[in-house]
């Protein structure tokens, strides 16, 4: 029976791998996701057949409660809130690993003749550590995404506290590996410190760096699962945990590269605005004074009317203004007039990897029109109009031509190469880096002040009247 159960776990691991493989193309992704769900069903049925499962009631209650919450949540969450949902799910994954590790420790202490090995003890601590950090870290990240938790100012204090916690955890781990029996108090204290550590690690990270944090916590939730697999000697868990861990790490790397920052700088450097940005209001006013060209929706409609190719450049502001449907409407109108439309997607636009793509997919923009940064950049030169919607720092030419700029070296969308650039924005307020944007004072840039959704609706109305 035991071999049969383990074979089932192998089957589900294979199905997960095939499921992830499906994610390599939008055409096969739906099927891939279903394969993953089948794999999970196989794993759950196998676990229920385990001879250690004597009562099904509690399991059933847990599955119904958790499944119900998850199902309702998945149906109701707006696409603009996907970063919050994924961050919270990372936290639940870590939390589940933490709970399973502690429960299995308690069981081990009630097993007669239980002999622990050093690798079991290390896996136990790893599972508690990573699980707890993921749990609280993710919820701080959710708070930041919702705008309810602000960035901590005193980065040095947090750094010092993190180091202190790390030393205590290390000492505790060494002690636990040497004396693993009846260490309830030690496990409890270490667990609490790790929960605190999660808060301390994420608090000082800037709101703009959330794509990195979410990816990293995604990876942690996988690593916590793999560690739990080492405790339970369950290869299915080890395989799945490492797949998720690898996925999160790769996304983390992509996000860091797109910001030209090292992971250490993101995690321990504080927010970009503090690292040399953070220009005062008067400096910013002096920077823009008299150099900004304003236009209104009617002007933009006339320019678009004579254009033959238009590139939309969406950023986080698009999500905030819920302007993705209006954008799609405007794009459809342009296409009807024979104008070529594309969308330029910067890897860190939005608050999580792929955030803009999901929003625009919701507004039924075909994914073929969503173009990656490296591919679209040479095309700006041929574009008549680039419409910047709520993107700021990722379009700042200072990143490529001003070595003194805090964002120097960051890959940007070369929007300034378009014949005309229309920036739809509420005000001249700075982006996350806290610096003024050189794009806004360029000769070929027009600022259209206002809410991205309303402005586009007015442009649509004006174009229909032309």
């Amino acid at each position, binding site marked *: 029976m035991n071999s049969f159960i383990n074979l089932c*776990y192998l089957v589900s*691991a294979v199905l997960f791998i095939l499921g*992830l493989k499906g994610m*390599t193309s*939008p055409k096969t*992704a739906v099927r891939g*996701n*279903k394969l993953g769900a089948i794999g999970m069903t196989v*794993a759950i049925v196998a*676990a229920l057949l*385990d001879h*250690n*499962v*004597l009562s099904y009631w509690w399991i059933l*209650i*847990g599955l119904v409660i*958790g*499944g*119900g*919450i*998850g*199902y309702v*949540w*998945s*149906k109701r969450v707006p*696409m603009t809130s996907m970063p919050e949902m994924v961050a919270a*799910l990372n936290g*639940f*994954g870590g939390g*589940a690993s933490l*709970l*399973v590790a*502690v*429960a*299995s420790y*308690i*069981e081990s202490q*009630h097993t007669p003749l239980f002999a622990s*090995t050093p690798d079991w003890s290390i896996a136990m601590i790893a599972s508690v550590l990573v699980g707890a950090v993921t749990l609280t870290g993710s919820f701080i990240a959710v708070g930041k995404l919702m705008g309810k938790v602000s960035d901590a100012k005193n980065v040095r204090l947090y750094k010092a506290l993190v180091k202190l916690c790390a030393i205590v955890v290390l000492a505790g781990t060494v002690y636990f590996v040497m004396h693993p029996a009846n260490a309830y108090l030690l496990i409890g204290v270490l667990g609490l410190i790790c929960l605190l550590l999660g808060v301390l690690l994420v608090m000082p990270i800037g709101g703009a760096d959330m794509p990195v944090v979410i990816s990293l916590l995604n990876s942690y939730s*996988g690593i916590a*699962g793999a560690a*739990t*697999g080492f405790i*339970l*000697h369950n*290869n299915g*868990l*080890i395989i*799945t945990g*490492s*797949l998720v861990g*690898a*996925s999160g790490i790769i996304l983390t790397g992509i996000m860091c590269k797109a910001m030209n920052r090292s992971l250490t700088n993101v995690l321990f450097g504080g927010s970009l605005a503090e690292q040399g940005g953070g220009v005062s209001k008067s400096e910013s006013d002096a920077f823009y004074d008299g150099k900004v060209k304003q236009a209104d929706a009617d002007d933009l409609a006339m320019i678009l009317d004579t254009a033959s190719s238009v590139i939309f450049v969406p950023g986080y502001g698009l999500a905030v203004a819920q302007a993705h449907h209006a954008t799609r409407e405007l794009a459809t109108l342009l296409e009807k007039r024979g104008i070529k439309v594309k969308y330029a*997607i910067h890897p860190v636009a939005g608050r*999580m*990897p*792929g955030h803009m*793509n*999901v929003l625009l*997919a919701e507004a039924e923009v075909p994914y073929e029109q969503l173009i990656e940064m490296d591919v679209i950049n040479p095309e700006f030169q041929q574009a008549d109009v680039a419409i910047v919607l709520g993107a700021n720092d990722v379009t700042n030419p200072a990143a490529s031509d001003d070595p003194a700029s805090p964002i120097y070296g960051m890959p940007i969308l070369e929007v300034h190469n378009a014949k005309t650039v229309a920036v739809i924005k509420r005000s001249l307020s700075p982006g996350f880096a806290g610096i003024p944007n050189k794009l806004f004072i360029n000769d070929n840039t027009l600022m259209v002040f206002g809410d991205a959704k309303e402005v586009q609706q007015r442009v649509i109305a004006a174009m229909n009247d032309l």
Partner: protein
Amino acid sequence: MDMLIISLTIFVLAIFVGVEIINKVPPTLHTPLMSGSNAISGIVVVGAIISAGGGEHTTALSTILGVLAVILASINIFGGFFVTNRMLQMFKKK
């Protein structure tokens, strides 16, 4: 110790498989990839089920922790798979 070597081998090889596959996922699908991996990390439910199922060495506390873990893991499983499906359907239609 043999068990550990086998587990470590599986762990390392699975990471390589993961890296190979994930590197081919286009940026367009990065959000569904993350919610999908949230769903499969709910696999920890198998450990939770065994703790919640009250085997011979369980205590009241370990059962409670097990049930809580089942709840959290199944939020991941159901929430993750369904929301991923919802997003992927949007990518599918033209």
